[in-house]
């Protein structure tokens, strides 16, 4: 069987990047600054690229084989551990294995991770190596980059929760290193620390959950054992729910959901490829993956026993979806809009997962697998679109830097072009400095155009297929379980809000007239950058192929038996979405489409629309939109200043005060506890030690007066003492 060949090499998928990590790091240290290293290897970029390419090829090979029925396997024993039970006297031996686990969830995420990592690598070569601020330290970037990818690929392929946790933590470390890549900036160092510590809070709960799971399943954490329905049925559902709830908190931290979401916007301090990596390909998907992995537990436990956790998951998702979308309304930083958009879209996926879990736990398996499939399909669409959006944003920022450099070259003697440089008040990431770039950066504008449409859910493009599925399934649950109404309503409103903030971002960046002189000098010219943009635009536009393959059905490991071919698949999806037999759901679909496609963009046009300058022409598929936005904007009587001065806007600028509250809480609680601990340390622990010390000193001073001080006497005493002991022993014997 062909499957066995690839299974032996499958371990190379995470191992190759992991081995490339020290290679790039040490070669970089040795050859740093030499012309060969800079030009021939692109400071390590061309070492990382073939490695990521090999991982991608192996992944695709594994995926093709697994579609033909290859499943995971145990590859070899990692270590054995035995322990002795004093009560029974029995010795238990436990074997820890290394293996890979393959199901539809694995292959979907494997493709997302390896494909996007490869494209981001291509992008990085264009982005990182042409920015003078990165000179002579790109090897560090590429080394950490491949380690990050290795963490994600390993986590996806892991066959037990132990390995999942190990690779999970590897990603946590790499996110810290990469967010703090510009460690000389205090804000970047702060952001890295914040990301690391916030996810750490989640990870503590994750490991508590894993220990609980370990106890429940009698020392097993490998998927093959814990996902076996018979083993799940033997476990107390209440304890299992608690354990999974703990693990879910870990997922919240990793996927930046309320209330552990504060790290994600600050993570924008890292270089743009890192943002793309964290937000699209790896980090945030890990939390979703963990929650999606829990699905079999919900399916195999007694009906209704785990509904609470499913409702909590959906609520967290609903709250985050609307909160992040609100904050995204006022962000001026191009990357921060995308960061909040990521949070919001991940929240959709969480809500979808919550709905799937609820359905699975209440005996609606068919609907549950479709909801799970929709959520995972949204993960796929979001990853593709968000990866592209971040790279497009990177492209914009990069060209803004270059244009700024050209325009202001005469009055800048230093060659530092960093975006947040203190002595340079020009912010290349701020949308207030952009505008009118549609004609100057056609490829980037197109990529962002379709990427935004995919995120908004404009019919037939990318995320539309999956978002409709999530909204419909959540509402379906809401009619069965009233408490789901709140998250369902939240994500429905969120759809319209997505339409607003994504359109706003696109219009502010690409439509209207250039707001600064720099923006009018932007040219799209950096090599390597357009490649991933074009590829991903294609991926986003072809999401209908996946929809036609009824991907939502088979992603949930559910063979619906409906699939008759591609065209009928498309027809089925169309009928399901636009001509649903359930009149309430049909109405909801049109409300969602209306909100996201018409209302959201319309308000964005009113506020931020505008035609290009005279003589500038955008590509035809964007030109009509820009002209329309200009016409809407001219006829708008919307009062922008009232909105800008409202108290809601002000608190949105403050990110709804979450950071302030957390900081204050930290100051009060943590510093207070630290002061108490310090008091305890100085008074009690040090006091005891000092007491022992003075007592011993006093005692020895007193004893000292009894001695002679002569070494000879001590030898005599020792000899006599020995003799005495011997004498006593003799007597006893």
């Amino acid at each position: 069987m062909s499957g066995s060949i690839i299974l032996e090499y499958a371990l190379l998928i995470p191992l190759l990047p992991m081995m490339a990590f020290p290679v790039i790091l040490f070669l970089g240290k040795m050859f740093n600054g030499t012309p060969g290293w800079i030009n021939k290897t692109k400071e390590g970029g061309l070492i990382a690229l073939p490695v990521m390419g090999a991982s991608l090829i192996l992944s695709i090979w594994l995926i093709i084989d697994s579609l033909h029925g290859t499943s995971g396997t145990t590859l070899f024993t990692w270590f054995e551990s035995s322990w002795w039970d004093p009560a029974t006297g029995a010795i238990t031996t436990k074997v820890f294995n290394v293996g890979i686990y393959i199901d539809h969830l694995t292959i979907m995420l494997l493709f997302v991770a390896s494909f996007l990592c490869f494209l981001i690598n291509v992008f990085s070569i264009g982005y990182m190596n042409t920015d003078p601020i990165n000179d002579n330290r790109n090897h560090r970037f590429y080394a950490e980059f491949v380690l990050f990818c290795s963490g994600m690929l390993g986590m996806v392929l892991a066959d037990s929760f132990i390995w999942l946790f190990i690779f999970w933590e590897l990603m946590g470390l790499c996110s810290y290193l990469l967010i703090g890549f510009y460690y000389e900036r205090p804000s970047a160092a702060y952001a890295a620390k914040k990301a690391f510590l916030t996810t750490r809070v989640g990870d503590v709960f994750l490991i508590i959950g894993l220990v609980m799971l370990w106890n429940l399943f009698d020392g097993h954490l490998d998927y093959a054992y814990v996902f076996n329905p018979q083993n799940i049925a033997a476990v107390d559902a209440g304890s299992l729910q608690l354990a999974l709830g703990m693990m879910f908190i870990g997922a919240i931290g990793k996927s930046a959901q309320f209330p552990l979401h504060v790290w994600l916007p600050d993570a924008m301090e890292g270089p743009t490829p890192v943002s793309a990596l964290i937000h699209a390909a790896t980090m945030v998907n890990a939390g979703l993956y963990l929650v999606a992995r829990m699905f079999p537990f919900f399916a195999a436990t007694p009906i209704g026993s785990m509904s609470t956790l499913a409702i909590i998951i959906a609520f967290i998702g609903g709250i985050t979806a609307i909160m992040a979308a609100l904050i995204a309304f006022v962000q001026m930083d191009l990357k921060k809009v995308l960061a909040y958009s990521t949070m919001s879209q991940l929240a959709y996926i969480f809500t979808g997962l919550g709905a799937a879990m609820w359905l699975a736990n209440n005996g609606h398996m068919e609907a549950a697998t479709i909801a799970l499939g929709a959520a995972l399909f949204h993960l796929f669409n979001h990853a593709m679109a968000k990866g592209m959006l971040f790279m497009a944003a990177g492209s914009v920022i990069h060209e803004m830097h270059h244009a700024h450099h050209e325009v202001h070259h005469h009055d800048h003697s230093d060659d530092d072009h960093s975006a947040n440089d203190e002595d340079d008040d020009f912010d290349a990431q701020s949308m207030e400095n952009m505008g009118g770039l549609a004609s100057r950066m056609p490829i980037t504008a197109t990529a962002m155009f379709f990427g935004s449409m995919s995120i908004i859910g404009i019919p037939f493009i990318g995320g539309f297929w999956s978002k409709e599925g999530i909204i419909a399934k959540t509402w379906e649950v809401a009619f069965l379980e009233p408490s789901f109404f709140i998250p369902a309503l939240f994500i429905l409103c969120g759809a319209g809000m997505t339409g607003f903030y994504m359109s706003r971002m696109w219009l502010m960046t690409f439509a209207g007239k250039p707001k600064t002189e720099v923006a009018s000098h932007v040219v799209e010219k950096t090599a390597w950058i357009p490649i991933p943009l074009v590829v991903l635009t294609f991926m986003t536009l072809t999401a209908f192929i996946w929809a036609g393959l009824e991907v939502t059905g088979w992603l949930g490991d559910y063979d619906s038996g409906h699939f008759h071919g591609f065209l009928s698949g498309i027809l089925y999806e169309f009928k399901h979405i636009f001509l649903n037999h359930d009149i309430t759901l049909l109405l909801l679909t049109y409300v969602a489409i209306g909100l996201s496609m018409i209302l959201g963009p319309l308000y964005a046009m009113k506020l931020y629309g505008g035609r290009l300058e005279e003589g500038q022409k955008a590509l035809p598929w964007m030109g009509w939109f820009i002209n329309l936005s200009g016409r809407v904007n001219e006829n708008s009587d919307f009062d922008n200043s009232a909105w800008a001065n409202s108290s809601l806007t002000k608190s949105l600028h403050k990110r709804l005060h979450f950071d302030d509250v957390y900081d204050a809480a930290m100051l009060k609680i943590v510093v207070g506890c630290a002061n108490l601990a310090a008091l305890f340390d100085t008074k009690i622990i040090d006091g005891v030690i000092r007491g022992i010390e003075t007592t011993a000193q006093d005692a020895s001073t007193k004893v000292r007066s009894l001695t002679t001080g002569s070494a000879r006497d001590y030898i005599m005493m020792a000899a006599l003492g020995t003799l005495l002991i011997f004498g006593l022993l003799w007597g006893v014997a």
Partner: protein
Amino acid sequence: MIDPAYVSGLSAILFTIGLWGAFSRKNAIVVLMCIELMLNAVNLQFVAAAALWGDVTGWVYAIFAIAIAAGEVAIGLAIFLSMYGQHETISLDEVDLLKH
């Protein structure tokens, strides 16, 4: 082969000499030598007993004792050196700091 009883006797004589020297001499180096003599008397006893019982344990102990004695000499000489540095003497009669 020599009768182990003779070797034991030699060991006892050496040990007594060492003990007497350690008590009566005032030069620290001579005292150290006497202690070494006692240690080696015990080693001899170990070897003799090992030969008598046909058991290697005694030899192993002797090896350990030699290793420890080497360490002890190194430390002892270092102490005497620093003692000489501070007091300009290594006579045991004149060093009684522990008393004061």
